[in-house]
């Protein structure tokens, strides 16, 4: 059996008196790509934030066998859900990467940009890039420290079809070539089937966990998205 990358036991999160997540349990192994699926408000972003230590929670979260609340030796990368700012703001791609406190020298930023095929845009303004290009730059900042685990919160929202395909190819490259364990939340079930080793179905509680082809059933989809949801056959 492979080493555990992420272990979550009895995780519950209350935000402002509202139960956002209840009794979540799952294990991810090193080198897996896991997809968190569920409707809006299901708690996908909150789960990622709990693992990153950005919200308080009850339960246990272990990353590479270490509690996420104490001192740790693991490295995490994060791509947030919302990243919008004034389109006239003249922040360049290079400047944005230089803000990451983990950046040791400029060579690391160049290497990360080449990894996501954005090196030629390094002096461009971040706000002027397309949604797909902006997302690649966000991945570049997340992989600067060569993370053990990479978390991406609804990374393909607002990206066109070709941008989305390119995005998942980068994710596949990071996973296969660098062995990075990846956790991403998504609404795109077709991409989950294609790229994820494991799926976690959430709607405040956990409705499934495992191989997407086995775990996502009609009953699970109805629990997540309502009675009229259809399970369309997927061609691999």
């Amino acid at each position, binding site marked *: 059996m492979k080493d555990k990358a992420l272990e979550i036991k009895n995780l519950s999160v209350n935000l*402002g008196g509202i139960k956002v997540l209840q009794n979540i349990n799952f294990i991810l192994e090193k080198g897996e790509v896991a997809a968190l699926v569920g409707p809006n408000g299901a708690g996908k972003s909150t789960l990622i*934030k709990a693992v*990153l*230590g*950005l919200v308080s929670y009850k339960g246990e979260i272990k990353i590479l066998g270490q509690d996420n609340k104490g001192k740790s030796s693991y490295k*995490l990368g*994060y791509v*947030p859900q*919302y*990243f919008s*700012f*004034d389109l*006239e*703001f*003249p*922040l*360049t791609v290079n*400047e*944005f990467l*230089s*803000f*990451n*406190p*983990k950046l040791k020298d400029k060579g690391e930023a160049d290497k990360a940009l080449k990894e996501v095929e954005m090196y030629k845009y390094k*002096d461009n*303004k971040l706000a002027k890039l397309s949604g797909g290009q902006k997302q690649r730059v966000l991945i570049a*900042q997340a992989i600067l420290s060569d993370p053990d685990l990479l978390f991406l919160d609804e990374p393909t929202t607002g990206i066109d079809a070709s941008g989305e395909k390119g995005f998942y190819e980068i994710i596949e490259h990071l996973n296969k070539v660098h062995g990075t364990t990846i956790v991403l939340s998504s609404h795109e079930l077709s991409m989950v089937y294609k790229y994820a080793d494991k799926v976690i179905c959430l709607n405040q509680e956990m409705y499934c966990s495992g191989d997407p082809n086995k775990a996502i059933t009609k009953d699970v989809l109805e629990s997540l998205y309502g009675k009229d949801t259809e399970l369309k056959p997927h061609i691999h």
Partner: protein
Amino acid sequence: MLEIFELAFMQRALITGIILAVVLSYLGVFVILRKMSFFADGIAHSSLAGVAIGVLASFYPLVSAIAFSLLMGLLIYYLEEKSRLSSDTIIGIIFSSGLALGAMLMSFKSGYQPELISFLFGNILAISWLDLAVIAVVGLLIVLFVKFHYKKLVLISLNEDLANAQGVKSKSLKLFLYLSLSMAVVLAIKVLGLILASALLIIPVATAKSFAKSLQHLNSLSIFIAIITVFLGLLISYYFDLTTGPTIVLLGAVIFFLSLLFKEKN
């Protein structure tokens, strides 16, 4: 033309104006990025209560205004963190109640109140050496703080979650940014008045934003535009016998609109 700067009061006015131009436009980048112009206005207006406390207690009003503005900055931060009220609502309440308290306190002092007029509309030509010293020391501390934490401050302004995930302590930095902004705005009330104090935070950066090629370029261009605006504003107000604060602000606005026209044509 420049012989007016041989006069001591014009020298103090010019030095103070340049210090404020640097401090305010340096901080103004964060005001524009975080869409905080209402914060700056709210602090400036509410600082009337601090001025009034100083005037009534026969205490140096600039220092009491700085102390009061720090308190208001702290209160806005606390309410934003602890309540579910929107930032706009919180600042709106602080803005009006500070102004109301200031007006009420001022009514306790009978007769003509030159300090009140001076703080409402500013009077750069009445800057004393003490004013200049306070503005220079506080301004330097603000610039040093921002320069030291510059990258982290930009990061928390872009996305707090991302900053936290990268190990940045965003809450304490945000609080210090609020306090720095509160102090910077109040430094400007001696020159521009509390009604116009936030103008130098916003107008030079808004003008420079359309032309800047990078954030570093935006910083230097904003500071350059702010210094030119203050310098020409002083000259124009002196030779045409106009009130200095409003002249500087109106000149800044004219440069901004001309830059918009230039940008549209190109």
